[in-house]
């Protein structure tokens, strides 16, 4: 197994930050007293697009909408599985209007839209990332507690036809799974145990043969919120220790600052949604 065999991440959905701002506070990083520099946000986003494209990814854009500023975080749109799309059900009222925007976009783009039961919250790829061990079946690791329900994992397994393992998120600063877990290939992943309870740590330990375990400091710098395109790992921050290990495994590390988005609690991964994920294949 070599670096770069991740079977998804070459086709990415993004939404420009035309209306982005910190207008409400729904995670510990958000403060409505903090102003977002719109120009800086736009240029950081543009640089992320260029970096991903340079790494070989195709970037698909969806139109920004003023009433839903967090649409920019496309990772939370939902879960893609081949030609199937399951839109997120957001826990916070502020983000709930995004569901229909996302469902409409995917339906128009040719996806089959399947819905979660009304009473279950799940925030899409923000809270669920696939790991395919070499020679094994794809497992969707799903975080729960702050934004998603544990029971949503059961509903998703039914809808997607792939095993979903719910693990509990325990640190409110790491409110989504994608702040704690980043699959790299069939053996490796960036993992941040700070975000999980003891059971969750054991589940990841059993799933990932060669984890790169992030320190608490690296975790809180959003290292795990990275985007992997083949052999390229695009990171909001790339501490030397982490970058060296990734390079030793054969990855190219590109640091792509997105600190305007960190003000809303989002990093590189949060701004992207892989459109080429096939879970039940």
């Amino acid at each position, binding site marked *: 197994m070599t670096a770069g065999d991740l079977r998804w991440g070459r086709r990415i959905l993004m939404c420009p930050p035309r209306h982005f701002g910190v207008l409400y506070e729904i995670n510990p990083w958000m403060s409505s007293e903090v102003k977002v520099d719109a120009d800086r946000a736009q240029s950081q986003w543009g640089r992320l697009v260029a970096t991903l494209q340079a790494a070989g990814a195709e970037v698909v854009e969806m139109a920004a909408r003023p009433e839903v500023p967090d649409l920019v975080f496309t990772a939370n749109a939902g879960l893609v599985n081949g030609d199937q799309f399951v839109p997120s059900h957001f826990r916070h009222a502020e983000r709930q209007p995004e569901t229909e925007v996302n469902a409409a976009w995917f339906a128009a783009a040719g996806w089959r839209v399947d819905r979660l039961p009304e009473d279950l919250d799940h925030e899409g790829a923000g809270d669920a990332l696939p790991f395919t061990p070499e020679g094994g079946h794809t497992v969707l690791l799903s975080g*729960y507690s702050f934004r998603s*329900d*544990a029971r949503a994992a*059961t509903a998703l*397994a039914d809808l997607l036809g792939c095993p979903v*393992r*719910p693990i*509990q998120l325990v640190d409110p600063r790491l409110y989504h799974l994608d702040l704690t877990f980043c699959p790299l290939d069939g053996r490796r992943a960036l993992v941040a145990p700070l975000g999980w309870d003891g*059971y969750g740590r054991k589940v990841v330990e059993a799933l990932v043969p060669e984890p790169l375990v992030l320190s608490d400091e690296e975790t809180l710098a959003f290292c795990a919120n990275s985007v992997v395109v083949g052999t390229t790992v695009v990171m909001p921050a790339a501490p030397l220790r982490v970058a060296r290990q990734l390079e030793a495994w054969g990855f190219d590390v590109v640091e792509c600052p997105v600190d305007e988005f960190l003000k809303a609690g989002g990093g590189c991964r949060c701004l992207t949604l892989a459109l080429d994920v096939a879970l039940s294949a």
Partner: protein
Amino acid sequence: MSTETIEVTGHIVDSLLLAKILDTILDAGCDYEIEDVHIGKTSLDPSTARIAVIGDEAKLDQLLDELQVHGANRTHQHDVHLVPVEQDGVLPAGFYSTTNLAADVRVDGTWRPVENPEMDCALIVADGRAYTAPMHKVRAGEQVVVGSDGVRVHAPSHARDTQVFEFMASEVSSEKPKALLVTQVADRMRAARRRGGRVLVVAGPAVVHTGGATDLARLVTEGWVDLLFAGNGFATHDIEADVLGTSLGVSVAEGKPTEGGHANHLRVINEVRRHGSIAAAVEAGYVTGGVMHACVRAGVPFVLGGSVRDDGPLPDVITDTVAAADALRDQLGGMEVALMLASTLHAIAAGNCLPAGVETFCVDINQAVLTKLADRGSHQALGIVTDVGPFVGQLTNELLRDA
């Protein structure tokens, strides 16, 4: 103690969710029983577990909220289904049949305690109250619980004091030191008395045959018995022993058969019938001692339930068995201890009417009787295999020692 059933489905084994849920239950100081578990064959197949969570009511509510976060939901979230009785004494098909455990029913989203737990009854809901009723007592129009939705049964409480629980846990005690058991039964009677609880004694004829009647009469006189339940045989032989000195014709003092003694009990029954009642016979000075005399003198109520092979019977015997059981039921309020002394049919009848919370001690020389009682569902009963006469004597000494 309460029990709630929860269910969790999904990839609960690989995600360690099941292990976490079970650990969480124990960490909260509660207990669980896995009622049903279905493990998926491949990693793709979901698994399902249905778990009964047992614990203190206050803890349980908090725990269930916590478990809900991990995806485990209560299975009983429905109101009871009520169907009206159409015909007096006939229950709707599918009626809920009760246990003797404390229970709650959910009406309009609120759990209400069942007022008088009794096994093998129907549950009636009226004016926001819930109570049990035996089949023959239901009347047309009453609302009866059908199915088991909205009914939750509380596990037997072991919380009151662990020592008793350990003591009670042994069920039948043929191989235990009897003196120790006697002391413990006496302790339970004293404890019940301190709490203002009542004591029921169910007595069979063997109490008289084995010479235990005098001691039992002392217990009645000294206020240790609040209700006596027996049959025609016990009352007859008790009076026979007082009046003629025999029990079923055998001299209680010498243990020898007496001339013409086989008819002694009939002659005694005949005389009491002449007086009109046991109380009248006592008043007239015909009966001057024994348990029935003590009950009359001390004002302790008794219920005599008849059976098909009774001689006479004594005028106080209720020959309609349904009416006899109702008469017993009417007097069971506040009962906390039941002593079943060498009685089979009356002990089972009383056991059927008692809520599980009543500490029940069954004394019999024959272990099969005790096993039978437990098999009929009176699991709260502790069986003591011993000769009843000496047992009553020791218990009386123990209780009256300080007097």
